[in-house]
């Protein structure tokens, strides 16, 4: 039988010829070649099968002549064997391959954040106006001692207290929002530049992801966490020292237990130099670190990295899986200063769809059980908890902090700020927005200064919103919300989930 595909396009792209000015911009803008200009008529002829609804053409069409709509093609209904599953079967029957997808899990699982409500003050305790009173979001990440010891030293005629306890190095961030790891290679250098500039201006942290650090980003090192993942791409002594902290990536929420695969097309000269691998070869990160097969091995790597960096904080990133509380406890006992939890909605440049959509647990539950476990064991102060994987708004940040996170990491939201439309075609390497591509004609679409400004705006706006939330709660420092389940209520969650979260149902007072 001839090459026939059964999968019909997801979207339908239509050009309104009455409006079209035949300028050809759509053909130029689309990274996937949806639009071809017809030489005879002068109008674009769209190939809907390539469209991912990224809206690049729609955004730049001067005539608003492009309509992208859902393909209304009807399928015989079945709640269990949905058209989506049928399409997956057809594609695999055609190719024999694993289906890939970008961005995060998009399945309609329960979104716990949307079932949690925050408290506010009325009458008996006053709310605080963040426009008039200081509202403190500053956060310190890292290992804190159990207690502070003081000695008194002479000061003029009297004495003054002086710190006797030796403190570990802490990472100071001005807002409890950091950037999640996104590697150079999966995203473009201009994205990395935008992130680094924004992190510096915001007083927060960007994370290199596992692709090494481009030489241009050296000036931002106080705001950069360098990652050391299973592929060890671009890892050398100078790299490890090029940031303010090191992160060992064990797993990722979008693909727990799975390695990484950056296709050779994305490995151009600069990526190859930064990653220290030959140009054009696929960059394969193994599923496990081949030197970590137990918690003792992790401990060795943590301390090797500390030795190599003069005891900078070490973060360990793990995916939120069923046993996350025990794993996190082991990670803290192994010496990690930060545990970075990535929930099952976390984004990715590319992951097998079956893993992305079916493996892991929600970040809300992971935060709560990890925080409680560390408290029960009396080691909560020994490491900070960063929550990631499905943080979509300032409300999510506030709720994650109330559940027990020290800070949240965001990734997808940053890319959305840069123009990403969550079309989920990152793995194709042809992102029309110039975000997750290395093609020079596409990457230059993103001006780093513009990108940095958008990210600064976004995080500043969220920080203002968090300040409003704190003010309404009647507290003026974020540490008074951190881990305060008492300020959360659930609406429409089952009893067991409430118990795991440690949150009472809405309608119950103190």
């Amino acid at each position, binding site marked *: 039988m001839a090459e026939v595909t059964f999968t019909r396009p997801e979207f339908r792209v239509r050009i309104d010829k009455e409006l079209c000015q035949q300028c050809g911009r759509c053909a130029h803008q689309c990274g996937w070649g949806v639009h071809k200009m017809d030489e005879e008529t002068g109008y674009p002829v769209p190939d809907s099968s390539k469209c991912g609804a990224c809206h690049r053409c729609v955004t730049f069409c001067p005539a608003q002549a492009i309509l992208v709509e859902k393909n209304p093609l009807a399928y015989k209904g079945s709640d269990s064997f949905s058209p989506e599953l049928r399409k997956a079967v057809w594609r695999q029957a055609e190719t024999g391959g694993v289906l890939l997808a970008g961005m995060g899990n998009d399945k309609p699982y329960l979104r716990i954040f949307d079932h949690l409500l925050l408290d506010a*003050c009325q009458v*008996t*305790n*006053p709310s*605080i106006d963040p426009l008039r*009173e*200081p509202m*403190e979001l*500053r956060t*310190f990440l890292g290992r*804190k*001692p*159990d*207690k*502070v*010891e*003081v000695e*008194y030293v002479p000061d003029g005629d*009297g*004495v*003054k*207290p*002086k*710190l006797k*306890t030796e*403190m570990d190095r*802490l990472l100071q961030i001005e807002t409890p929002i950091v950037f999640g790891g996104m590697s150079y290679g999966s995203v473009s250098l201009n994205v990395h530049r935008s992130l680094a500039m924004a992190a510096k201006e915001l007083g927060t942290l960007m994370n290199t992801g596992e692709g090494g650090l481009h030489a241009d980003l050296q000036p931002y090192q106080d705001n950069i966490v360098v990652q050391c993942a299973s592929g060890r791409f671009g890892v050398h002594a100078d790299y490890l020292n090029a940031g303010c902290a090191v992160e060992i990536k064990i797993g990722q929420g979008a693909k727990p237990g799975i390695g990484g695969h950056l296709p050779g097309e994305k490995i151009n000269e600069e990526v190859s130099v930064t990653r220290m691998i030959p140009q054009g070869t696929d960059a394969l990160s193994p599923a496990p670190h081949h030197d970590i097969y137990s918690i003792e091995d992790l401990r060795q790597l943590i301390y090797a990295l500390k030795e190599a960096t003069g005891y900078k904080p070490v973060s360990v990133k793990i995916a939120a899986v069923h046993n996350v509380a025990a794993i996190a406890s082991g990670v803290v006992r192994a010496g990690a200063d930060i545990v970075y939890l990535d929930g099952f909605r976390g984004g990715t440049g590319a992951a097998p769809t079956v893993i992305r959509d079916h493996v892991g647990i929600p970040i809300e539950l992971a935060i709560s059980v990890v925080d409680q476990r560390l*408290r*029960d064991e*009396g080691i*909560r*102060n020994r490491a900070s908890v960063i929550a990631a994987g499905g943080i979509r708004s300032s409300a999510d940040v506030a709720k994650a902090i109330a559940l027990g996170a020290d800070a949240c990491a965001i990734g997808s939201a940053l890319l959305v700020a840069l123009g990403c439309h969550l079309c989920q075609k990152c793995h194709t390497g042809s992102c029309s927005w110039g975000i997750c591509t290395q093609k020079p004609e596409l990457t230059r679409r993103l001006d780093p200064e513009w990108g940095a400004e958008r990210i600064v705006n976004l995080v500043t706006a969220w920080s203002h919103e968090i300040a409003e939330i704190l003010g309404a*709660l*009647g*507290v*003026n*420092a974020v*540490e*008074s*919300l*951190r*881990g*305060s*389940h*008492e*300020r959360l209520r659930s609406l429409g969650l089952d009893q067991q989930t409430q118990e795991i979260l440690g949150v009472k149902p809405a309608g119950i*007072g*103190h």
Partner: protein
Amino acid sequence: MIDRPARKYGGLTLPGTRIPDVGRRPSYTVEAEEGILGNCGLMGVCDEAGERMSGELAVRSMASMHDRGNGLGGGFAGYGIYPEHPDHYAFHMMYADEDARQDTEFYLARQFAIDHEEPIPTRAVRGIQDEPLLHRYFCRVDAERLQETQLSEADYVVHAFMDINSGIDGAFVASAGRNMGAFKGVGFPEEIGEFYRLDEYAGWTWTGHGRFPTNTPGWWGGAHPFCLLDYSIVHNGEISSYGINKRYLESHGYQLTLRTDTEVVTYLFDLMLRRHELPVEIACRALAAPFWKDIDLMAADDKEFYTALRTVYGPGLLNGPFAVVLGMADGMVALNDRIKLRPLVAARDGNRVYVASEESAIREICPKPEKSWMPRAGEPVIARLRGAAFGAAPQSVPAEVN
């Protein structure tokens, strides 16, 4: 409703009031479940030379703030009041019934050597009703028993305190400190003071409290002060950071049974002062921490110190409106929240340091203090008994901050 006629107390004329008839408390944990919200009046006085003052002084001061309470809770703590048993842990007990008393006495007799016990003397006062059985026990910790448990003496007493409050139905420890005691109940403070015959006691430190619980019937145990070992707390305000403060304390082994902010404040002081051995002025800086904008302006070593203090004790930061007075074996500390959302005035006259919600309550018992001032947000007022050092702080630390 119960009508209380206008009456005189000392030189004061107090207006008549109507208060809800809350009846007999059904159980000792009902209020704990309901939560307590309120606005209150408080006072404290400490003679740094250790000269003892009649409890009547504290009662009169509180009486002048009659209108800050609603008759649903009043109480006092006195230090130096048991010169005949200065080294005994004085368990002030409240019992709902005889069963609770028998269970508690069985427990106490097993855990302690009781050298003296008696009913707490009271006199009939109009307006005070449905009082629990009130009894006190002067206890010693048996050295051998202590050895067996491997606990410090203080921890041993704390365990007993928590065992009784969480384990014995209808029994409540009002206080269990040395040479001190809490006297509290449902009523206006001046009624409670008269009921407990405080004019017959003399102490070098007194604190007092009148409650205004807004949404719950008062119960005797829920009145202030709240005590642990030698610490006593009277508190006006609401701790908006209660949720995390409670979890922080729980991970240090405290059982919080009362769902009151005051319990949290008391245990935080216990953790920082006794277990972490922080000087009291430093503990206050952790509980009502300076703002980062101020820390940023400090000299490098101060900045390092306060940054460490805030990062380590962040979960213990008391956020929300409050004024508290902490009574201790060796002095008294008053503290406001970091943006001073509740009133607190201080004064000094000779050896005596006074604090109160209202200046009039100080002038009632000390008409012309040498100086009086409004302590700034987060700045503790500290009175120390001469020769006593708080925690590890050396003697040369100024006696008060103002």
